[in-house]
């Protein structure tokens, strides 16, 4: 080793050419071995074949301005004019045409509330206050009947606001039920534990469709004569009961991760069972399961599309109805892509949020 002269800086040298720069990156990432090179070439070929064709169909030869379906059929690309023509019925369903500014405001309120809920400063009583106010305002706008707004029956609701309403109410009401079921499953009392286990496993063992069918055809039979629950509310109940079972299992995972010392410590302070849970156990347990809970919210948001099968007018059903127009036949792929994009924006942003949350919440529980 040559000794450096004290006080004289050693001249800095650049890194060898073979490890920096575009060529080196390509060598390391794309052509590091024969198999790797083959894979790269194969996927580049695949992309070259598919991407330009897709861009051409989606944008370059698409038709946005056609006024009739026949004009659209002449172009080789996608017929976005169909979406322009039908966007009102896809987004708002059968809601009276002149009143559709009301579901629009309701949609903005709900989306705004969802975005604000991601802001951690508000994670306290304010969240509850905000949601109560928002949901009440949404109800006023959607139903009307007060402040000079005409009354709109909920059988006329539809489209995006209905999807948002079904999923937000579903999450909001399934959450407390899920907590109770999770605590019940961890209870020392055999009878309560048995009831909760049977409920959770029964619901998780059957598809949501069977619960929706049950709400559509069996629930009316369950009720005393003369009593009738509206179809939308029945579907909402089925979604809540379904989501609660899954939430219970997720929350139970969090409860199991809390060390026994926390329960014992809380008990030795003389707290009652509910105080122990509310002040000591649940705040820790829920914090652990926030990321999987967001995952559940995403799944539930997607699952609300199943109400199509019992004929409720959510976003997916509205799309199907828009497609029944004989004049605009044959453009279902465009409509499905449009709807998919809406679902994707919601689900993808929630999942990105959940990932960032996971990083920020990792405070010492993990190495």
């Amino acid at each position, binding site marked *: 080793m040559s000794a450096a002269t004290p006080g004289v800086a050693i001249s800095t040298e650049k890194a060898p050419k073979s490890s920096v720069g575009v060529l080196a990156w390509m060598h390391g990432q794309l052509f590091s071995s024969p198999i*790797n090179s083959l894979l*790269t070439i194969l996927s580049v070929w695949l992309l070259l074949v598919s991407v330009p064709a897709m861009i051409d169909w989606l944008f370059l030869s698409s038709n946005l301005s056609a006024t009739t379906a026949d004009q659209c059929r002449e172009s080789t690309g996608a017929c976005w004019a169909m979406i322009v023509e039908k966007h009102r019925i896809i987004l708002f369903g059968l809601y009276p045409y002149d009143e559709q500014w009301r579901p629009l405001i309701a949609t903005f309120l709900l989306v705004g509330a969802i975005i604000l809920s991601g802001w951690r400063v508000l994670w306290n009583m304010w969240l509850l206050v905000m949601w109560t106010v928002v949901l009440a305002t949404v109800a006023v706008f959607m139903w009307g009947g007060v402040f000079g707004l005409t009354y709109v029956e909920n059988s006329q609701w539809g489209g995006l606001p209905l999807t948002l309403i079904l999923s937000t109410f579903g999450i909001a009401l399934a959450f407390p039920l899920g907590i109770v079921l999770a605590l019940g499953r961890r209870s020392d009392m055999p009878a309560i534990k048995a009831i909760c286990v049977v409920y959770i496993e029964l619901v998780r063992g*059957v598809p949501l469709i069977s619960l929706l069918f049950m709400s559509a055809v*069996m629930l009316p039979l369950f009720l005393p004569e003369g009593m009738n629950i509206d179809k939308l509310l029945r579907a909402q109940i089925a979604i809540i009961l379904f989501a609660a079972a899954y939430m219970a299992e997720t929350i139970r995972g969090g409860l199991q991760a809390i060390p026994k010392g926390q329960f014992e410590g809380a008990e030795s302070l003389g707290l009652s069972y509910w105080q122990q849970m509310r002040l000591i156990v649940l705040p820790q347990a829920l914090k652990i399961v926030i990321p999987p809970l967001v995952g559940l919210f995403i799944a539930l948001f*997607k699952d609300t599309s199943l109400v199509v099968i019992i004929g409720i007018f959510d976003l997916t059903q509205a799309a199907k109805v828009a497609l029944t127009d004989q004049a605009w036949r044959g453009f279902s792929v465009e409509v*499905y892509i449009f709807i998919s994009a809406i*679902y994707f924006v919601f689900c993808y942003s929630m999942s990105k949020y959940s990932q960032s949350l996971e990083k920020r919440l990792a405070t010492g529980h993990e190495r």
Partner: protein
Amino acid sequence: MRAIIYQVIALLAVGSAIWFLIHNTLNNLSARNISTGFGFLSKEAGFAIGETPIEYSPASTYARAITVGLLNTLRVALIGIVLATILGTIIGIARLSRNWLIRKISSIYVEVMRNIPLLLQLFFWYAIISETLPGPRQAMHPLPGVFVSNRGIQMPTVQGEGLFWLFVGLAVALVLIFGLFKWARKNQEKTGQIFPSGRWSIALLLLLPAGLWFFSGTSLSLDVPELKGFNFAGGMTLSPEFAALLLGLVIYTAAFIAEVVRSGIQSVNRGQWEAAEALGLKRSHVLRLIVLPQALRVIVPPMTSQYLNITKNSSLAVAIGYPDIVSVINTTLNQTGQAIEGIMMIMAAYLTVSLSISVFMNWYNKRIALVER
């Protein structure tokens, strides 16, 4: 003491709620003149079913129709599980590839597919197959004997008496391979010699059925679909409904399985890879002997729930008209009005399938679980 009171109250509440519901139901049913019970099962169904793995005609009973529906559900679920596992594993491994391009493509696939509702994807594939694909006369012809058109996918099948011997050969080969692996492991423990059981199994799998067929002297012919009139005859047909359902289920679930596989492999400590390489093991041996056994422990539980999801999600078939159990029972209860019995049967069927899958996967999970001293 207090605990007992709470439990009694809870039981009473649940019990009286159930009693209330049953009481109302019975009242309502008698008011509407609907008789309860499963007597309707032996009546004539009177509706046709598009796809029947067992013999069925509109003159068959409801019980027969529901069996057809159940078999259709199991068929799509089983094939879906196998294909989604293969595709999902490939994509999961691709997400960890050293190749930047492969990594990016597979992660885009995962993000797009799992953020769009399955139902919408099913509608999408069904629309593509039934609207955009050409008719039988202009069918696409990607491989010899395979035709893709808006009537579904036609594929050649093998037929003849030789088929029996092929299956016998396959069964014998599987038994022999099972024994071979057991013997190879014992032999390795005793002598340290590694027996190339993988190559031998492939040879057995190929040679035994072929040899048996050859020496039995039975016939074996290829049934290739042919265009006759306006549709295809011969071969095997995947209906548009089945193809769309299978495609949707596999593509959607593979995205989730890919994530399961990726996190499983990532959960194995880097030190394990390095130590195995330091021992001089080949890369394939590192994967098979060191990494996979540890990754499987993490992978199996979430994989189980994905398999359960495929089975339950196959019920979305009703939306595109594939005659699965939900769709058949839905028709049944519209015709007979036996709503309660019908829904009970749907739930019982899914509960049975779900429980069997989880019992099997739990058994497998226990087998591969870490044995701690």
